[in-house]
Structures are given as C-alpha cells and as structure tokens.
C-alpha cells in the first residue's frame, strides 16, 4: 500500500475545470448556487397559480367518514378516495388511525398487518364474485421467458440473485400456511365431532 501523508490540502482535482468543461456537456452550469432552484430554501411559490390568492382551499365533500392521522388538527381539505375502508382490514386500519399517532410503531405495524388481512379478504371476495386471482398472470413471471430471465442473471455477478429465491416463498408461503391451517382445523373439528 503506498504511503499516504495526511496534509492540510485537499486532494488535487484529477482534471482541471477546463478539461472537465471540454469533456462533459454543461459542466459547471450550476456552479453558482444562485442558479440552483432549491436555493434559497425559503422561497415563496411564484405567483400565478392563484392558489395563494385563494387561500385555504375549499373542502372536498366527505362522502363517507374518512380516516385520518390524529396528528392532524382537521381533515385535510383534499384527500384521496381510492379503496375506502371495508371488512376486517378496515376495522384494524380504523383502529390504527384512531388509537395511535404516527410516532408509534404500533400504528404502522397494525397497518401492515391490515394490509395482509386485506389481501386474504380481497382474494376470497373476488373468487366468490367470479373474478378469481390468477397468481401466475398477476406475478408477471412470464417476463422470465419473454425478457431473458436466465441470461439476465447467470454470470452477471449480481448479488440480488441470492435472496430472489425467497420471493416465491413470500408470495406463496402465506397461502400454503393458511391452507395447512385450514386442513388442520378441519381435521380437529372432524376428530371432535367423532368424539375422538
């Protein structure tokens, strides 16, 4: 290892500004911080959108009770209305919002748990409604065939290949576990009904 003395100077630039300007289109165009859009930080919205003139926005009608963070003093005047709360996942989500602030892990862990419940609920519901999920189509694994799954990975020295093997487990695992659980439950019931 070469000896590297620690001196007060910063290491020299490998190339001079002139060389960089010649080699890289636009080098130094924003060298002056004044040319950079985020400077200064406290810059007011350029007039012209009309939003500041109009002040606090009109309120979007709340057609059904909208869950909100308890860290908000009011329902925000505008909000998304996609996928309203429903089912058991809805109960868990509503509880997470009502009971816990955003600083609490419980808030987020409950929401993640509700996400998993939602997947089960929705899968069952859509199967009953005659729009069953097609796991193969929905995961897009066909892309492995149409977009060189093998040659994109093998010999490329990628590190993500090691954990990609877990993906099918993550997708299918909960369903397999749920299936085994149902089988075990049914067995137990049958055993009990038979008076063991």
């Amino acid at each position, binding site marked *: 290892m070469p000896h*590297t003395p620690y001196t007060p100077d*910063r290491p020299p*630039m490998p190339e001079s*500004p002139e060389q*960089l300007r010649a080699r890289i*289109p*636009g*080098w*130094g*165009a*924003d060298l002056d*911080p004044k040319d950079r*859009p*985020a400077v200064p930080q406290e*810059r*007011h*919205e350029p007039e*012209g*959108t009309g*939003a*500041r003139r109009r002040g606090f*926005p*009109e309120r979007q*009608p709340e057609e059904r009770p909208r*869950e*909100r*963070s308890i*860290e908000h003093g009011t*329902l925000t*005047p*505008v*909000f*998304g209305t*996609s996928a309203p709360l429903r089912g058991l*996942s809805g109960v868990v*989500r509503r509880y997470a*919002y009502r009971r816990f602030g955003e600083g609490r*892990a419980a808030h*987020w862990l409950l929401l993640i748990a*509700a*996400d998993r419940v*939602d*997947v089960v609920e929705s*899968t069952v519901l859509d199967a009953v409604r005659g729009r069953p*999920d097609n796991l193969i189509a*929905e*995961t*897009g694994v066909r*892309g*492995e065939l*149409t977009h060189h*799954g093998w040659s*994109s990975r093998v010999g490329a*020295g*990628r*590190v993500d290949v090691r*954990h*990609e093997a877990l*993906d099918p487990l993550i*997708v299918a695992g909960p369903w397999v576990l749920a299936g085994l659980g149902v089988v075990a439950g049914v067995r137990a019931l049958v055993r009990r009904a038979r008076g063991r």
Partner: protein
Amino acid sequence: MRAMVYRGPYRLRVEEKPPPRIEHPNDAIVRVELAAICGSDLHLYHGLMPDTRVGTTFGHEFIGVVEQVGPSVENLRVGDRVMVPFNVYCGSCYYCARGLYANCHNVNPNATAVGGIYGYSHTCGGYDGGQAELVRVPFADVGPAPIPEWMSDEDAVLLTDAASTGYFGAQLGEIGEGDAVVVFGAGPVGLMAAQSAWLMGAGRVIVVDHLEYRLEKARELAHAETVNFAEHRDVVVSLKRMTDYLGADVAIDAVGAEADGSFLQHVAAAKLKLQGGSPVALNWAIDSVRKGGTISVMGAYGPIFSAVKFGDAMNKGLTLRMNQCHVKRQWPRLFEHVRNGYITPAAMVTHRFGLDEIAEAYHVFSAKLDGCIKPLIVPGAG
C-alpha cells in the same frame, strides 16, 4: 376505464374501474398518454409501504391530455397536454408557501410525516395513480404544466419524477467546485444525480451499483467512474482508497429501502418487513464520505425505524439532507438543461409495455431483467 390494480405483494392485474370524478372544484381529469414505473413503485409492489390497499392503482409519473376540469380551474383547458409532478400539493399551505411542495399539509389526511403522492398508498393520501387510462389530478391550477412543444414525451414523463429527483439530490449535496461525489445506485434517480453533479461543478463522480449493465450506463451517459460493489470485499474501504483516504466530499443515496449488499439487512427489511428499509447504501454513504461531508438521501424509506449508523454520522460531523423532491420547483432550470442536452432523461428508457402487460413490466423492472433501466407504460396501446 382500464387501470392497473394492486392485488397483494408481487401481484397486480388490469381491471375495469369506474372512471375518476371531479371531487373538488380545482380537480382535473387527465387521460394518460404515457406513464412510467418508478423504483418507488417497487417498494409498494413488494408490500413494504404500510396501508397499501388491494384495489388501488399505482403510478406517480405520467403525462396526458386534460379531459375535464372542475369549476374553479383557471390555468388549464380541456385538450391541454400536461406533465404532472408526482407531488399532490395545494400551493397555499405553510409548506407550499416555502417551496416545500413534497411536504404539503393540505392533501394527506392519513399522515403528517409525508405529503401527497399519486398512486402511492393511503400513507401518502389514498390517491389513485396514473398507470391507468384516466386519473384525477387535484389542484389542477398548481401542479400540472403544459408540455413545451420542443420536449419529447419521454423527457416529459421522466421530468415528473426521476430526472427532477436526481437533480434535486445533487443540489441537496451542496456540491462545490472540484468535489468528489459518490452516487449509490445506478437506477434512473442515481444516473440523473450523477449527470447533475457535474453541472454543479463536481471534480469527480463515482457511481456504485452491482448491476454491470447499469454501471455501463453510468459511464456512458453520466461520464462517471464506477464501482461494482459485488467485486469488492468492503466497498467502503475501496472508496476510501479511491479518495486519498479522506473520503468523498458528498454522497448521494439513490437506492433506498431495498438496498442490497447485506443479505441480512435486505431480508429483514424487504422480505420480512422488520425495519422501515434496508439501510445498507445509506450506511455505506455515512461511512465512506469524509468527515464534515454531506449526504443527500433520495432513496425512500418506510415510516418504521431502520438500523442507520447514527453514531458514525454524529462523530464525523456529517450534514444529512433529504426529502421527497419538490418537482415543479426544479422545472424552469431543469428544462433549460434538458434543452441544452446537459441532462438526458429519455436516454434511460429501455422498455415500453402496454397496460395489459403491466404485470410483466413490474416483474422485469423489479427483477432487473433484460437490461431494464426505465420501463414506460402506454395505456392506449395493446
């Protein structure tokens, strides 16, 4: 209308959904011409973001034609071709008044810790996104802008997020003349950050990733030196060696929650959801930058705790800067750079998929197949 719909981790399909309505006087409905999948969408797709509901439509990078406007809309007309920043924001609250559009306080009832984002879970406001034929655009007077006629559609759609975010990431790094800048991640955000670092006067730009095809793009498009971390036993030591054992002046994290490089950290975060994000790249940034250096975090992390090496950051006296990008604020200057050819967003586009092929598109982008860097979705096709 047809729209991409989330069905659970790693699963989505196209469904017929009721078309979006004008729900507020300043709403517009936009017919999407071109949309993109972002690295951020992968965090949703993998089930990492709390309150990602089945049935929601993703997509926060899109351009299209105004189809309908609410009664108070003044700045848009039906038929206008617009590019829509990924931020949903009001333009009048405490944060918007200070240019912090990504932190708008009037659009996300679900959380105060993050602003509003199209198609990005209920944690970001519960808005459906643009990977669909039609999308509701709130505050139509504030966010959308007409696409300049000299601009290509590819550049326009990438300016709604990835290109603006990369440029913003370089700015937060407070790069000075001659600075050595390390960019972690050679995805669209990292590539744009690397290009932008030069504009701000960087003396060296080093891009780190493990996907050789992306590093090639970093060399060719961003004129950067590259480090393939899979070839280094300890990439932090290698970066120190490359920077006279001082460390780089600035490091930019353009990787985020699903960082690779530590099997355990990745599995704990991305697979088991035991932390808000795998902090591998962020920790590499903290450890490889010089004392007193600056770290700009563009990579996205979830709201739960992550194992970030704060002690090192403190002892080294680092400045950590980060945010979601305030997209529209970047545009006037960035448009000039795109027009001059200093920044070339469209050059990152590798794939186009029809809406019907969107499940495949997500898989190809997520698994990084076929040299994929940026996939576009064309709702009108297929």
